[in-house]
């Protein structure tokens, strides 16, 4: 873990306190209080439009919030701060998008190495070597010189994960990383995520892959209409969901 040594080990990686957000007068996140421990894997689930994407996007401040605080590594992400500092904070939170958002004008290895070079000032040859290792790790070493347009969706998403990992973030956020994929490609992406979890990465994943949630998550957050209604370990959540809305959600999933 690359957390600063001064932070006590038991401090959470991310803590959300009283987070509110609305679009106009339409509240999207209501009084969110939750935290993610170091090394914890949290799966966020809930019905469509419940605010899952909004929630995860506020954590690296791709969305602003109206009130409350989100503390990461001892810093309030939503405090007023110089752009430089925000960029630095963001660079230590990996984010994986539903539709990959690879840079189509750059080759795969350039996609992975450009941000370490441009943002962190890593020497290009060092960044390239690192990128090749990461690509090997996601099983795409032989695609290093291909362009994103030449890859399948599953391959693109694995490159996107490697790209995020290249910044060496202590935390990774995933917003429905497999929802845009053909079914036969879901597995390859999930297995990359699984191995990350096994290595102790702190992860927050919005996903509808309940098999993944059951196998990999330490905790499920169930969100509905902008509220976290239930947080529970997966075996408990799937067997004995307490909230009626969660029960209904799980029942709907079964067909």
């Amino acid at each position, binding site marked *: 873990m690359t957390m600063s040594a001064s932070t006590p080990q038991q401090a959470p990686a991310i803590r959300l306190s009283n987070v509110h957000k609305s679009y106009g007068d339409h509240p999207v996140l209501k009084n969110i209080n939750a935290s993610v421990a170091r090394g914890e894997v949290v799966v966020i689930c809930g019905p469509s439009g419940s605010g899952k994407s909004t929630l995860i996007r506020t954590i*690296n401040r*791709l969305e602003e919030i109206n009130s409350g605080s989100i503390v990461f590594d001892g810093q309030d992400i939503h405090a007023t701060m110089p*752009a*430089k500092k925000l*960029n*630095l904070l*963001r*660079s*230590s*939170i*990996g*984010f994986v*998008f539903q*539709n990959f*958002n*690879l*840079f*189509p*004008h750059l*080759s795969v290895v350039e996609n992975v190495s*450009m*941000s370490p070079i*441009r*943002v*962190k000032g890593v020497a290009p040859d060092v960044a390239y070597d*690192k990128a090749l*290792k*990461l690509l*090997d*790790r*996601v*099983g795409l070493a*032989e695609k290093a*010189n*291909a*362009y994103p*347009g*030449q*890859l*399948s969706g599953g*391959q693109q998403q*694995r490159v996107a994960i490697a*790209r*995020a990992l290249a*910044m060496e973030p202590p935390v990774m956020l995933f917003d429905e990383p497999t929802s845009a994929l053909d079914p036969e490609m879901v597995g*390859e992406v999930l*297995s*990359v995520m699984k*191995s990350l979890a096994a*290595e102790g990465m702190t992860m927050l994943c919005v996903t509808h892959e309940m098999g993944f949630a059951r196998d990999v998550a330490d905790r499920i957050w169930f969100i509905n209409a902008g509220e976290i209604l239930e947080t529970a370990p997966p075996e408990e959540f799937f067997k004995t969901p307490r909230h009626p809305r969660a029960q209904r959600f799980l029942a709907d999933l079964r067909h």
Partner: protein
Amino acid sequence: MITDIITIIKDYWLLLLIGQYPNGPLGGLANTLILSALSIALAFPISILFALARLSKWRALRWPVTALVYITRGVPLLMLVLWSYFLVPLLTGADVPSFVTMLTTLVFYQGAFLSEVVRGGIVALGHGQMEAAKALGHSYLGAMRFIILPQALYNMIPSIISTFVSTIKDTTIGYVINVPDLTFAASQVNNQLLTQPFQVFLILAIVYYAICWSLTKVANAIEQRITRRRAGPSRTVVAPLAPSKILSEQP
């Protein structure tokens, strides 16, 4: 007809090529090329600045540039040229050479048009690319420079080229304020010959056509080179996955 044209070229090629130079200012084709090249070289970066200003979240930047672009686009170039020609010396008292007046006006005029092209290219990319860049820690300007603009400009190459071509054609308007360019030289030739306007202006048309055509060719070649590079060396079939290879070992 052809022989007339050949005779005209034989007699006047130096005037058409460099104007009165070295006895007077540099003119003719040389000056047209210089004016075109400078206009394009300056209008291009200015158009990017205009586009960024128009997309800025700061009103103080957005509004004045938006107004400037709207006004510039809504007024004929000739009008702007005459304005700058008569008004600038009146206001500043400075004696501005007509070449500079023409260059500045062209740069703003074509810069305004081009900025709309650039802005369109940026907007067409959508939010995803900027969000991905931000999430990786890039600054706004860093993301623009390394991620957004390379794509937006590439996608807009055809429109950018046609703006460049019209910039070259618009240099001819310098004629009305006596910029000693190719058009000016040709009309001098015409005034001396008096009887062969068709031949003289046909030469003029051919030369302008040749310049614009070469520019288009060069641009297409550049575009194809970028496209080929982006297509990458391996247009091969997607290799079957080695499923177990996916990870586990530390980097």
